């Protein structure tokens, strides 16, 4: 094959003509074409990006393309090998046949030309004519080949010799008296077009000179055969590759479809629709996947329903306890009120009992309220009802509510507010509850020292600190102050009648806002509580506008 492919008869001048014509077309259209190319480039770039995205997402596409590439390469190799083998076979057979025919023709050639004497030009001419006639008549398979006869001896009348050009290398070999074979483009008839062919050069020794006989075998039949084989292999190959790719697509589809269904269903389950299930058919691996998924979803659904029911029961219980306890408590409260109002008519011990009953009912009520509030948090039913509110007004309200108590305990409350409005999205009821708690604690533990309330704000957050100068906290206690029913110093009496749940509820209130409630304290240096709130609901906090450790305490620590 390599021999005649080097001869290049497959496609000679055509391709270069094509190239030149495209060049002129591009140059003619000029900038317009360039813009077109640019657009096509942009379009294909976009297409490539989309394809890359799809490539990453679709297993089916990946399998199909991989199969296509691998089977394509395989088919290409096999195809090339096949075509090569067949072409070589065909050419080898033709060559053997040609050599056989040349051998057959040798006897008449030697007979006709062997006696020709170059000293007698007419004799040479006659001999050549005789041979030509003979070859023409003996050649039953006429048209199989053409004979070109040349000689290296110049004769006066050389018309008898053919002027057909023959490759120089071939001529050189023949002139040395050897048979030579070469593939070359030839004319099948003196005025015919060029076709691929095989030339066999045969020297015949005449007297005083050498005749060169060139047998020209046209190979167009073989070329057609090879082209047919090439086409057949090409189309069969393409068909095979497409077929394999289609099979790959169909097979992966069988796997990918259920996987996609499973992914979609899982997404829906994750989205909250717990009743979603996969329809399972058959008993294969895919069906097992579906069954396992359904079992998982079912168990998940049962668990969540159980938890929901528990939560519902808890909520119901909270609500029921609330109602059941509160109605008799109302009656008791009113009865106590009536007794309390008439205590002047009673003997002193009974009167004191009425007073104690009244006071303890107050405590009981607050405790019940706190318990219900914290159980509401535990049940996860607390809702934030945020409004745009000036934090300063909430702080002022909370401080005003505690002024009386503070004055009663000889304790002064100082408030530092920013001049500008501090608008924050808060549930004012809850924030006021936090502040009242912090103030109550500060008065409780402040040992009659002044209490300082500071409000600060930046773009993202607002903060309130409540600073007292009382006994402070022992190291490590800052972590416990928000625990339920925790008491700093059990021996200390409570002035404000706290329930022990206040700070725990305050912490939950702050968390509900997405805010922080933190404590700082040092033995003898007092304590500071800092409430930090995001300015807008849902904004994450990263820092607080006020320091947790008060400025007057920094450095005083040992």
């Amino acid at each position, binding site marked *: 094959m390599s021999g005649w492919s080097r001869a290049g008869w497959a496609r000679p001048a055509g391709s270069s003509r094509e190239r030149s014509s495209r060049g002129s077309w591009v140059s003619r259209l000029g900038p317009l074409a360039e813009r077109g190319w640019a657009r096509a480039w942009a379009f294909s770039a976009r297409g490539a990006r989309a394809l890359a995205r799809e490539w990453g997402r679709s297993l089916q596409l990946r399998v199909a393309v991989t199969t296509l590439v691998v089977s394509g390469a395989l088919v290409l190799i096999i195809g090339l090998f096949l075509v090569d083998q067949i072409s070589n076979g065909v050419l080898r057979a033709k060559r053997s046949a040609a050599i056989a025919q040349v051998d057959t023709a040798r006897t008449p050639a030697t007979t006709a030309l062997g006696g020709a004497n170059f000293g007698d030009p007419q004799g040479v001419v006659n001999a050549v004519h005789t041979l030509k006639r003979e070859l023409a008549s003996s050649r039953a398979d006429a048209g199989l080949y053409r004979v070109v006869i040349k000689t290296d001896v110049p004769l006066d009348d050389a018309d008898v010799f053919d002027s057909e050009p023959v490759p120089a290398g071939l001529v050189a070999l023949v002139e040395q008296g050897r048979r030579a074979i070469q593939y070359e483009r030839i004319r099948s008839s003196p005025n015919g077009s060029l076709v691929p062919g095989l030339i066999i050069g045969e020297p015949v020794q005449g007297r005083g000179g050498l005749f060169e006989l060139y047998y020209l075998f046209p190979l167009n039949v073989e070329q057609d055969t090879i082209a047919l084989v090439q086409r057949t292999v090409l189309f069969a190959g393409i068909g095979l590759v497409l077929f394999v790719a289609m099979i790959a697509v169909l097979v992966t589809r069988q796997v990918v479809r259920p996987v996609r269904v499973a992914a979609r269903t899982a997404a829906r389950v994750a989205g909250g629709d717990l009743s979603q299930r996969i329809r399972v058919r058959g008993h294969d691996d895919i069906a097992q996947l579906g069954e396992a998924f359904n079992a998982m979803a079912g168990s998940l659904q049962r668990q969540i329903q159980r938890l929901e029911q528990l939560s519902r029961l808890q909520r119901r219980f909270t*609500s029921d306890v*609330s*109602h059941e306890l*509160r*109605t*008799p*408590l*109302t*009656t*008791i*409260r*009113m*009865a106590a*009120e*009536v007794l309390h109002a008439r205590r002047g008519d009673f003997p002193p011990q009974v009167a004191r009992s009425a007073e104690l009953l009244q006071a303890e009912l107050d405590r009981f*009520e607050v405790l019940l309220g706190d318990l*219900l509030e914290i159980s*509401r948090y535990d049940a996860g*039913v607390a*809702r934030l*009802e945020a*409004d*745009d*509110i*000036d934090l300063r007004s909430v702080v002022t*309200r909370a401080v005003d*509510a505690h002024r009386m108590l503070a004055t009663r305990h000889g304790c002064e409350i100082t408030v530092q507010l920013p001049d500008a409005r501090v*608008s924050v999205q808060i549930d*004012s*009821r809850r924030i006021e509850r936090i502040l009242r708690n912090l103030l109550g604690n500060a008065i409780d533990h402040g040992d009659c020292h002044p209490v300082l309330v500071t409000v600060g704000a930046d773009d993202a957050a607002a903060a309130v600190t409540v600073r007292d100068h009382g006994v402070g906290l022992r190291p490590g206690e800052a972590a416990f102050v928000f625990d339920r029913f925790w008491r700093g110093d059990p021996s200390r009496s409570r002035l404000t009648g706290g329930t022990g749940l206040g700070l725990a509820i305050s912490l939950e209130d702050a968390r509900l806002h997405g805010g922080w409630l933190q404590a700082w304290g040092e033995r003898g240096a007092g304590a500071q509580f800092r409430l930090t709130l995001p300015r807008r609901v849902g904004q994450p906090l990263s820092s607080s506008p006020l320091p947790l450790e008060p400025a007057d305490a920094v450095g005083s620590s040992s």
Partner: protein
Amino acid sequence: MKPRVLVVDDDSALAEMLGIVLRADGFDPAFVPDGNRAVTAFRDSKPDIVLLDLMLPGLSGLDVCRAIRAESGVPIIMLTAKSDTVDIVLGLESGADDYVVKPFKPKELVARMRARLRHHDDIASESLTIGPPESPVSIDVPGHQVRRNGGAIALTPLEFDLLVALARKPRQVFTREVLLEQVWGYRHAADTRLVNVHVQRLRSKVERDPEKPEIVLTVRGVGYKAGPP
């Protein structure tokens, strides 16, 4: 003449105790223990004010509230054991004027009742006009009449008080706390939900389009004010 009170509560001990307290404070109480008989009892006794427990056997407190509100503007105060927003807002939306959460102090209850029963020192022939010029709302304060385009609008006494409070100072913005004090008689700020719900109810009666209020305007972050006269 003692003000008549209808107490709708299924807890007999509480009802009896309420009776003692109310009589001591100069009211004339009547009692009904279940929801089904509450509306009939209301028609028979024609009370000046109703105390209504929300959790009742038979017809629920909310249904009783709606039934009474459908035929009368008499003040209704809910007695509720639930302080959850949903329950309170539901109660207010079904027509209650105010609520007290159990356990309440008798003084607090009586103060609320007196605030609802308070008769305004009506100035002779005080008349107010608010709203857009092309379709104003006129209020005849002593006559307890509200008119728009000649048609009378029926308001409960509470809604009327709320509208008058806003209309008397048309340029002033009222915070919810101030309204609570002026209209409901709360000494210190309590529950602004009360104001929100009643403003909604008032708007649904006096506004042409409650979604685009012209009579009772919201001032964001502050409170409410009357629309321009």
